[in-house]
């Protein structure tokens, strides 16, 4: 094994961050290839179970990103999501789960450069933290599970 390459899962909203990440590509900005982007209609759609499932299936870091406050395509989805994250984050921290591995962010459709920075920073940080062995130990990320 050479250097540790973090696996990062990004849950992003369709209207802002996904379009922002698209802009990063069309602007030909290079960024870390460690991120796997999953597109959702809205940050309000991102259930907290997704985050747990990503860790259980081998993710070392997670990015959750969507529209800036007041920019939500559905008016208030990101406000609801923000409340849920505040509560969820404190619960995870209380249970001893490493919240440094979860990055919440607002990236708009015009912020291609911010997206590249966000991914680069997160990748660097997770690289420093190393693989999330304590969570992976209790799950079996290498085992293929077929849902549905």
């Amino acid at each position, binding site marked *: 094994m050479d250097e540790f390459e973090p696996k990062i899962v990004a849950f992003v909203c369709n209207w802002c961050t996904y379009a922002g990440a698209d802009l990063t590509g069309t602007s030909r900005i290079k960024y870390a290839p460690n991120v796997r982007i999953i597109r959702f209609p809205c940050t309000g759609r991102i259930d907290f179970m997704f985050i747990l499932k990503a860790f259980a299936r081998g993710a070392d870091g997670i990015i959750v990103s969507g529209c800036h406050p007041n920019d939500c395509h559905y008016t208030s989805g990101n406000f*609801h999501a923000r409340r849920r994250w505040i509560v969820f984050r404190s619960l995870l921290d209380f249970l001893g789960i490493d919240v440094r591995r979860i990055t919440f962010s607002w990236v708009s459709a015009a912020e291609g450069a911010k997206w590249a920075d966000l991914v680069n920073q997160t990748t660097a940080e997770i690289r420093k933290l190393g693989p999330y062995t304590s969570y992976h130990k209790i799950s079996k990320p290498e085992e293929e599970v077929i849902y549905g």
Partner: protein
Amino acid sequence: MDRVKQKARDLLDSNKVQVVIGYEEGTDGTARPVFIMDSKNIDKLIFNDRCYHNLAVYLTKVEVEKIGRVAVEASLNTLKGIVKLASEGQFVFEDIDILGVNRNGELYEFASLDEVIDYIDQHPVEYSPEEISLLRKIESMTREERWEYWQEEFSRCIRCYACRAACPNCYCDACIVDINQPQWISPTPDALGNLEWHIIRAMHLAGRCVNCGACAKACPVDIPLNILNLKLAEEISKNFGISEEFLLTNYPLAIYDPNDKENFIK
């Protein structure tokens, strides 16, 4: 207590209610819930400090609805459960009768839900020093210690779901943990499944829990589940500035404030 029994007897005899849910002497010095449908069994009813079950849990059960109108012997925690369930539209408050005596020894006479809420506000429940000290102890641990602590606690979990059964607010017909298409949480009592179950239980009760502690008391392996709920209740009132009175009839995660804190969002 005699007046409570008399009122219960009257209600049953006049057929105003079909069942009285209360407490009776259990085995080994415990108290347990009892369903009385015949007024000659009314003398079984007791009420004391050992009656910790939250009887509001029965009010959403289809089996109980089938029996008919219900009168329930209510402790303060049961009253809170009733208010929460009624405000979530699980039943109409006027459809149940409440038995019991207040702190002044007078029979409960609640004409409306608002009166119950007023009564609860006048008698705030203080958390026991043991609960608070355990909460503070866990908070003061390092992250790794907290992880070890909860892994150790959850490792005893046998997934009997007694916590879910004892909780008045866990009333979903199909609980997410029972759904297997798709299966969100492993039903086997392994480390991952247990962790996910307790996270999802705490999250689904966040802002709805009435902190009656019935989950922790029901737990056969003594996992301090109510500490999780307590922690989230504290976080919610701290972060959103919500009073207990407001929490009783509202769900804080279904509303928002554009000025919620976002110091952790990049």
